[in-house]
């Protein structure tokens, strides 16, 4: 008992020494934890472990963790997921610069060109064409992965994880109250969903005192006007060419006309989904030009809704439209390259996407053959159109993001052009082409 800790006399020096050590430990703990924060969650330092990072909402995060558990068994490695909360690009950049990035990570369309240029991501072409990959390039719609190629059009540095096509969600009740007798989905089914029908619906909604459609300066919200009339956005070399295309000019002219008439409201640079989504949910907006990500928030609304593709000149076709997507890329300095490739392959494979996306309701598969995901639960009624739009759609043109400065300046330029009432289709095209083509 006399030797026990409690009974031992504590002198001043011992107390000070203990106190100092305790203080040192307490103070150093967070610092040390912070220093190690980049690599610890990845757990990829040892052999047989692999990690990936992505942005994720809480529901997605849980699903990804389950995916990691399942994949761990399948590829016989410890797979871990790092959910990045907050400014994803900044955090990933810090991790890459510090050599602490996970083996694989999501890359947004605005960052891919920079990461390829800086040799931070690896070419996946050989893996995809080899026998080990559970997914082949042919399984992806061609328009979805062009932005993952190098500046010279070679290589493939990322694979789309899922996607979201630009479609028109519409509020049946608002349209009906405005006197629109057939909703856009019915018109599309009947082969009469053209721009006259769209303009007519927008006119009627405006007359009823509600808003027709709100668009932002995000390319997803305006590039369809270039292609919906049959215009060409970019040529095979990736150069933006819509300034010389009469059909593209017709589409842009129609869009600018709708801004001027008040049929379509320009919502500037508000965060995507804030202004249009809020009004749509409040039953004040007839159309909302967003992807499938809107579905989870719409499930509890009391009004009727459905989707239609962007209109076409013939009224029955689905024209090429923007598709928002992100890719998973292989860290060029991956500690476990082989397992990271297996992770990527399984992540975007049919099986992987089925696991990740089913029940989530906020994206569309980026590989062919998973049409059922978009029609899950029968909501919205025309959910199959998501797949059809993806099949003909295009992801962010490389020219928009090939230079980081261009990627940041394009939305600002579009904002200025849409706010200027004297902007014409020609002046818009000229300004955008000048910025992106250099």
């Amino acid at each position: 008992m006399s030797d026990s800790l409690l009974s031992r006399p504590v002198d001043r020096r011992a107390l000070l020494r203990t106190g100092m050590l305790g203080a040192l430990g307490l103070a150093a703990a967070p610092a040390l934890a912070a220093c190690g924060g980049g690599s610890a969650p990845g757990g990829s330092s040892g052999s047989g472990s692999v990690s990936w990072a992505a942005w994720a909402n809480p529901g997605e995060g849980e699903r990804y963790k389950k995916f990691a558990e399942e994949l761990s068994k399948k590829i016989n490695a410890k797979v871990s997921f790092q959910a990045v909360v907050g400014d994803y690009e900044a955090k990933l950049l810090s991790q890459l610069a510090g050599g602490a990035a996970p083996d694989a990570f999501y890359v947004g369309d605005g960052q891919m060109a920079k990461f390829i240029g800086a040799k931070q991501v690896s070419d996946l072409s050989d893996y995809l064409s080899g026998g080990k990959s559970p997914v082949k390039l042919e399984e992806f719609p061609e328009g979805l992965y062009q932005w993952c190629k190098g500046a010279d059009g070679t290589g493939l540095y990322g694979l789309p994880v899922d996607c979201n096509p630009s479609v028109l969600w519409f509020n049946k009740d608002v349209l009906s109250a405005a006197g629109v007798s057939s909703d856009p989905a019915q018109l599309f089914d009947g082969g009469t969903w053209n721009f006259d029908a769209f303009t007519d619906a927008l006119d009627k909604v405006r007359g009823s005192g509600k808003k027709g459609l709100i668009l932002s300066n995000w390319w997803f919200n305006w590039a369809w006007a270039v292609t919906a009339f049959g215009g060409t956005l970019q040529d095979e070399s990736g150069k933006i060419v819509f300034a010389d295309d009469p059909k593209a000019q017709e589409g842009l002219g129609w869009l600018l006309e709708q801004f001027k008439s008040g049929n379509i409201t320009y919502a500037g640079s508000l965060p995507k989904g804030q202004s249009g989504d809020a009004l749509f949910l409040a039953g004040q907006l007839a159309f909302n030009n967003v992807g499938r990500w809107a579905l989870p928030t719409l499930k509890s609304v009391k009004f009727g809704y459905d989707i239609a593709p962007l209109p076409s000149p013939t009224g029955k076709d689905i024209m090429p439209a923007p598709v928002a997507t992100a890719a998973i890329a292989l860290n060029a300095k991956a500690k476990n390259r082989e397992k990271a490739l297996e992770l990527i392959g399984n992540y975007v494979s049919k099986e992987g996407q089925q696991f990740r996306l089913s029940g989530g309701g906020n994206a569309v598969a980026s590989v062919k053959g998973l049409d059922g995901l978009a029609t899950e639960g029968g909501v919205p009624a025309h959910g199959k159109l998501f797949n059809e739009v993806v099949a003909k759609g295009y992801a962010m043109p490389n020219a928009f993001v090939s230079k980081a400065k261009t990627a940041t300046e394009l939305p600002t330029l579009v904002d200025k052009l849409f706010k200027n009432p004297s902007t014409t289709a020609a002046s818009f095209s000229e300004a955008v082409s000048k910025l992106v083509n250099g």
Partner: protein
Amino acid sequence: MSLDTQIRASVDAVPAQPRRKVSRRRRKDTIAALVFLSPQLLGLIVFMIGPLGFALYLAFSHWDGFGAATFAGLSNFTELFENPRIQRSAINTVWFTVLQVPGVMITAFLFALFMQKAGRMTNVYRLGFVAPVVTSSVAVATIWLYLFNPEISPINSALRSIGIPAPNWLQDPSFIIPSFAVVAIWQGLGYQLVMFMAGLQSIGASYLEAAELDGCSAWQKLWHVTVPLISPTILFLSITSIIGSFQVFDYIYVFMDSSAPDEARTIVYEIVQMAFREFNFGAASALAFLLFLVLLGVTGLQMAAQKRWVHYAE
């Protein structure tokens, strides 16, 4: 040996040992102090001084976030001075400061004066005012995003109901910065209110009674007694407010994401854009360095000017 010499020798000899002891003890104390301080010092060096030094180095370098940085001389600074977008952002930042700093200080001071008469309700009011302070800026911005929505905002409905045309707060170029200032004032009010209340409560009743006996009106008491006596609080709040307002970023980022129009951009927003969107860490660091110099200068001027108007109680 003379007596004088003996005495001097003994005087010299006597303190010699204690002085060595004292010096040894001092050295021990210094070491102990350093050991105690070392965790904080380490943190300061790693997380403050180190990054500051690195930012200064980057300000004179070209660096895209990867690989080695190359010496850039003053080209990053030249690039900034020639960039009209940066000039516009600097003007926006100053405009925000001009609106926000006096706005929040005057409002907080007035509410603090009223709160002195609130009696038992003081704590309730104080809680209400402080709630936004402890709410994250992102949550605050999300709430205001709804309040600034021209179509569904209750503010706009109220304005329209009394015949005032409701502005499009976040789209109309002349309203964007004032809108940010309104949000910042709303969120910053509670902190300044608490500080002003503490300042007001520290004023001795005798000063005000003396002024009253001298026949001062309420306004004269406020202007000639109260304000001078809380001038240290005013100085402190003005310095911290100006520094904070020059660094405004979070509201803009939530309101506008990464594609804010020119009319909404501030200096710190530009720094983040240049660094993490355009991968131009050199120019971003140069801009951060310039911002640091400006804040240093403004704070220095405030400190110099305080000798003329700040009264410290004895």
